[in-house]
């Protein structure tokens, strides 16, 4: 049986992982019917579905630990308790912003999942291996886009650079451990984020430079998962609106 402190920390971690996916999926789905071309409407809907599917997997792992209902956690939890990274809650911006954000997130996930696939917590290892398969394809998609936008026209290059300037510091937050995460790392349950940051910076740094983008220095990096921007409240208000509208509803 899991030590209670470890269990709490794992629940917190799984929820944060799910929160990232849920909020990112929300931003992606805002593009559906508004993408630059019909084929990309299909692609972005695919990405959003995949991310939601991942959230479901993490929340089902949590459900095994504390019996919580994934829908309750997503749609009825107090917005102030959401632990997503700021990177994913930022408004979708233009296509360059969405693709650069997606790339930065996909690259992080690729590294994290590869390590997590050997987690000593078997259920997580299994889920990570499954998700990793899809993430590899996501990374192909987002990196293809970043390359084409960076190298395309002056305008697309400018938009991509502006997006990167804003987003890059937020990507660093992905490598800040949560409260209690050290114990999980020690137990071999989750990868050590600090050890992943170097390889991440090298991988994305070399890719971005390779397509002519300048990796920004400095910038504000949020210190904890409790830190958010003004955007999160409206995002969650809309996302939870129907579920909250009828609290008596037993099923939707």
């Amino acid at each position, binding site marked *: 049986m899991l030590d209670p402190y470890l269990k709490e920390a794992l629940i917190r971690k799984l929820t944060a992982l799910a929160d990232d996916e849920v909020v990112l999926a929300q931003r992606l789905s805002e593009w559906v019917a508004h993408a630059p*071309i*019909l*084929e*990309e409407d*299909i*692609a972005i809907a*695919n990405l959003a*579905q*995949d991310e939601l*599917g991942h959230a479901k997997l993490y929340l089902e792992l949590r459900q095994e630990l504390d019996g919580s209902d994934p829908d309750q956690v997503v749609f009825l939890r107090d917005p102030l308790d959401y632990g997503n990274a700021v990177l994913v809650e930022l408004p979708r911006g233009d296509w360059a912003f969405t693709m650069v954000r997606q790339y930065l997130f996909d690259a992080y996930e690729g590294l994290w999942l590869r390590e997590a696939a050997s987690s000593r917590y078997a259920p997580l290892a299994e889920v990570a291996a*499954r998700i990793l*398969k*899809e*993430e*590899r*394809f996501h990374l*192909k*998609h987002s990196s*293809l886009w970043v390359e*084409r936008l960076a190298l395309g026209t002056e305008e697309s290059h400018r938009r991509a650079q502006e997006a990167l300037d804003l987003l890059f510091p937020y990507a660093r937050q992905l490598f800040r451990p949560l409260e209690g995460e050290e114990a999980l790392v020690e137990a071999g349950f989750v990868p050590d984020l600090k050890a992943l940051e170097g390889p991440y910076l090298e991988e994305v740094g070399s890719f971005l430079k390779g397509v002519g983008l300048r990796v920004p220095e400095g910038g504000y990096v949020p210190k904890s998962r409790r830190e958010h921007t003004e955007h999160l409240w409206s995002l969650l208000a809309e996302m939870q609106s129907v579920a909250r509208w009828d609290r008596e509803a037993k099923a939707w």
Partner: protein
Amino acid sequence: MWGTEWPRYEVIKQDTERSLPQMVGSVHAADPEHALLVARHVFVRRPSAYALFVAPAEAFFHVTQEGLRDPMALEMPEGEAEAYWVFAKRSHRRSMVYGDLVGRFLAKSPGEAVKEALLQTQGVAFWAVPERVILGTEPKAEVIESWFAPAKDKTYRLQSYYGLITAKEMEDA
């Protein structure tokens, strides 16, 4: 070619290692690599697949059975011999029949490639495209795993995942 909608690429899908690649439709994309990615998004949503290929739509030579009645239909200027993929539609009756790959033929023109294919098979329509302009996914385990296998796991996309509920059953519940 370059309107507001990007060029068209024909998409060829191979469902399993043993099945014939088939022409399943087309996508609008900016370049071959993009076309392959987009083809995966558009054509491998529910059923899984083994491999995908794309080639610019304008590179396809197409002739119908009716067109073949013209003795000059397959005569055209010859170039260097190269490999062509030839697809044939076998029958008009079954509406789900697409162009199936007949084979790879070495020929000096698409017309010649179709002539070779006709020695092996009947069909109501034929397409020939030079192999050199086809881009496909590599049949490596890693690619199949990340590009195609996940679609198999997405059970919520299958009809059988949702039983049919009648009003009576709802009442009893």
